[in-house]
């Protein structure tokens, strides 16, 4: 060990090169994980806050109903079941149904979400996105629509629109509602289709006074898809407490675009990691190999004096292990420190309105954040150390196979 440290000190240049070969990949990975975590988290938050929640409880669907969700008439007993379990941050009852919105001679297929305004306030969904007019108040007859829809129907705050609801279970229902607010959607498709009304208004449209389509639930302490365990822990508690005719659907079913994005991200990250690790390992292999060559005489002497093959390999691997652990830890710390700095400065704003628009389509914010996940940091660093030590195996093996007589004749 002492000898390993002295060897590393003796050849500073090479030691630093090896250090960097390990440090840079770990640093890059930590940063990349930080960025992608933040992006995934954004998408996840957009989807689960505004639309799906972490999970929903719905009536079991027995027949195909197209875009419509089956109606549930006993949301009270579902809420009672939720009251009995732990870990729930928030829940509300919602009635979602497809409808046709028209104003004058213009119409557009929309999706009406009937909500309880005071209940959705704490998690600030569309309420915070309203740019004209106001959000709904309890019991108010009105609609909050997206900017895109307002443009399509050519209406503004105060104008009337006609909603034609057609739930397959209850048939046609028509309502005239005033536009009370216009919101700016994080996803443009949403701005074109999603309309908020109060639950009461939606129930009138569905012509069914107790109907709901879902109880939407958010779980405490969930920051992203990685917290899926917390969500599962809560849904597991619900077993046996719910009425027989309802089912639990989690965000993976409700927001397949987020889990789909994650499914793409994983192999991409693995490929990146493999490339970084591969390059790092090559440098480690190369520098260590040079170092073995340079020390041929010394290694020959050690072998001549009777050191076993394992001992010689152990010496080289100890050196490699030492330097790679230091490099990996430094890389990880730099990555984490950088993330802290970025967060302390409030994120990196992305320039360019076009990019911001594009990102809006997929539900990302135009500000880059870095979210550090310690398990990822530890795994990245440990994996790099593992790969580097594996790469060190070859030079170490070569060293152990030196013939003492030839090695001692070796002239640099």
């Amino acid at each position, binding site marked *: 060990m*002492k*000898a390993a440290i002295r060897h590393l000190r003796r050849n500073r240049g090479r030691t630093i090169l090896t250090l960097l070969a390990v440090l840079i990949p770990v640093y890059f990975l930590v940063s990349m994980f930080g960025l992608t975590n933040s992006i995934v988290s954004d998408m996840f938050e957009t989807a689960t806050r505004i639309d799906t929640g972490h999970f929903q409880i719905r009536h079991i669907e027995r027949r195909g109903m197209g875009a419509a969700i089956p109606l549930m008439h006993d949301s009270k007993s579902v809420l009672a079941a939720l009251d009995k379990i732990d870990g729930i941050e928030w829940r509300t009852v919602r009635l979602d149904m497809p409808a046709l919105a028209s104003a004058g001679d213009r119409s557009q297929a929309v999706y009406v979400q009937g909500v309880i305004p005071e209940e959705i306030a704490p998690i600030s969904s569309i309420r915070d996105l309203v740019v004209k007019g106001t959000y709904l108040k309890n019991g108010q007859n009105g609609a909050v629509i997206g900017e895109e829809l307002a443009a399509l129907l050519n209406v503004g705050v105060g104008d009337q629109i006609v909603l034609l609801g057609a739930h397959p279970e209850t048939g046609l229902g028509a309502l005239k509602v005033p536009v009370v607010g216009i919101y700016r959607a994080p996803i443009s498709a949403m701005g074109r289709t999603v309309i908020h009304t109060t639950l009461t208004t939606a129930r009138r449209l569905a012509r069914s006074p107790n109907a709901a389509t879902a109880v939407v639930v958010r779980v405490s302490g969930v920051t992203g898809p990685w917290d899926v365990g917390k969500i599962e822990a809560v849904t597991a508690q619900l077993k046996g407490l719910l009425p027989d005719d309802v089912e639990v659907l989690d965000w993976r079913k409700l927001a397949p675009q987020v889990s789909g994005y994650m499914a793409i991200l994983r192999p991409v990250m693995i490929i990146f990691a493999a490339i970084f690790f591969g390059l790092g390992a090559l440098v480690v292999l190369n520098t260590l190999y040079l170092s073995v060559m340079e020390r041929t005489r010394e290694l020959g*002497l050690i*072998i001549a*004096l*009777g*050191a*076993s093959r394992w001992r010689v390999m152990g010496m080289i691997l100890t050196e490699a292990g030492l330097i790679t652990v230091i490099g990996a830890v430094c890389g990880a710390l730099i990555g984490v420190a950088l993330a802290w700095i970025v967060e302390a400065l409030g994120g990196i704003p992305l320039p360019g309105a076009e990019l911001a628009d594009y990102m809006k389509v997929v539900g990302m914010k135009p500000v880059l954040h870095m979210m550090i996940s310690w398990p990822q940091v530890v795994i990245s660093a440990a994996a790099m150390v593992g790969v580097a030590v594996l790469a060190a195996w070859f030079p170490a093996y070569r060293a152990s196979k030196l013939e003492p*007589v030839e090695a001692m004749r070796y002239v640099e």
Partner: protein
Amino acid sequence: MSNSKALIQTIDLHKTYKTEAVETPALNGVSIELHVGEFTAVAGPSGSGKSTLLHLLGGLDRPTSGEIFLEGVALSGLSKDQLARLRMTNIGFVFQAYNLIPVLTVLENTAFVLELQGVVRAERIKRARKILAELGIEQYADQYPSRISGGEQQRVAVARAVVAEPSIVLADEPTANLDTATSHELIDLMRRLNEEKGATFLFATHDSRLLDRVSRLITIVDGLITEDEKKHDPSAE
């Protein structure tokens, strides 16, 4: 002494180096016996096979044919790992140069063989210090090899070679890089260890001025022993 059991016995040793197309015969049938307590020099011109012989005796290389017995054990029957163990426990080496590990201090170099043998730290430090003191070089204990002279380095090499009390010390031209006075001092040092501790030495040299203190002189020319002369042996009296 001649009727004591041989420490090392070789039978018809041949060694031919093969490199690509060229075959270099280095030893052409060497049969010798070395005994405990002997202080033997192998002399001969450059390229005569002295180093080759020492390498074979020390288990650093294998003969093309013939057999070596060390304390009755046939080296041809030992695996590579067993040979390494044998070198560690039974042989002390002093080479012409580059004897010391540059990143270890004189004391650590001296104790290195003991470390390989698994001797505990306190014990090996004690033994290494003791031998350095006996050889009058304890003042260099904490120096790195590059900070001391060539003659001092070779003394440390001798200390390292004898510290674990091996069966035999093999020294291949230990004085080749030293001036005459220092060379004599080194040979005297080895001789003293031989006389005082009964350590067995075999050293190769082509410097005839160093031969006046040996108890036995083997001359080798073109891979064959041409002379094997027992000299007056003061330690036998």
